């Protein structure tokens, strides 16, 4: 077969079409900001959860606490209903210590986040997430079970193409 000019044009058209199709597929499937925020929450859940099967030593627990703290901005705000001592502004260092101490109090911890509703600001740099969180676990010393559910409102900030938790407002799901 002799390759003619029109064959080259056809080949160029097919290549162009494939490139455009590839770009369209990438554009449609690429994770949006909302998807990235969902992943950030899923990551938080993964880090917080603690199973009895995996015994966690002090050093891995501290590393985990630092990993969780790194998911927050340098200074993050907490506003927790009826728990004024947990409310306030915390640096990552303080947050890591608090998380380490809190997780150490439990043998098992399970966090589940539901009804996640995300609003990303037009500038794509700020977002507000509203969700419900259920934390259940077993206390280490008393063996007491914890099962609490709260309504969360969380502000997120995008810094260096990464979403970070900036503030949390935690209140009762149903308030008298």
């Amino acid at each position: 077969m002799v390759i003619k000019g029109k064959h080259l044009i056809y080949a160029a058209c097919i290549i162009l079409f494939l490139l455009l199709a590839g770009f369209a597929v990438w554009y449609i499937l690429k994770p949006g900001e909302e998807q990235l925020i969902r992943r950030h929450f899923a990551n938080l859940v993964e880090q917080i959860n603690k199973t009895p099967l995996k015994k966690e030593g002090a050093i891995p627990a501290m590393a985990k606490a630092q990993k969780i703290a790194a998911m927050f901005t340098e200074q993050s705000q907490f506003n927790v209903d009826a728990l004024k001592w947990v409310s306030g502004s915390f640096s990552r260092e303080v947050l890591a210590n608090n998380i380490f101490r809190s997780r150490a109090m439990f043998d098992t911890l399970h966090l589940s986040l539901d009804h996640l509703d995300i609003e990303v600001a037009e500038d794509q740099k700020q977002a507000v997430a509203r969700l419900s969180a259920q934390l259940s676990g077993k206390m280490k010393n008393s063996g007491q079970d914890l099962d609490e559910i709260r309504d969360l409102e969380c502000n997120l900030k995008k810094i260096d193409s990464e979403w970070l938790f900036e503030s949390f407002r935690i209140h009762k799901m149903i308030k008298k």
Partner: protein
Amino acid sequence: MKRLYNTEEHRQEVKDALKDGRFWLIMRAFFFPKLARHFLLRVLIVILTAWCFFKFICMPLVIKGGSMLPTYPERGFLFCWTPAYWFSYPERGDVVVMKYGRGVMLLKRIVALEGDTVEFRNGTLFVNGKEVSEPYVKKKSDWDLPERKVQKNHFYLVGDNRSVPMDQHVFGEMHKRYLAGAPLW
């Protein structure tokens, strides 16, 4: 004998069977049809449709607890009809189903909407300073709750069973985004 499924030949066979009075053949075709492609496709469509219907449209619920006595029994079964508020907004007095964590729902009555003030005075409900007639409450209570304003985008929900002490009864304001629907009956 061949099991029946939807072809011209087998439709004729069913007709013949009906004429001859061989009902067992029809019953067998109905209850144990040949696993033909069409039949499997039908089963798949039925399963998918049922799953979507019962997951998103008409959710089955088990009632545990007597906070809605006597309107709803302490133990029972009902469906949550999710399209109930797709095109309308709940009103005061409506019984609604609210999402409460994973796999748990609350069945309550809306007594006040956003911006309203709510108060209990010796068991009597006052909304916006006016006494509310509640024929669905059969046992009077001695609840006393100071006046409060319902926040924006919230409903104020209370159960019909006021015979329990106030601190043991789960009630209060809840964000409207947790609204799942209305009970079907």
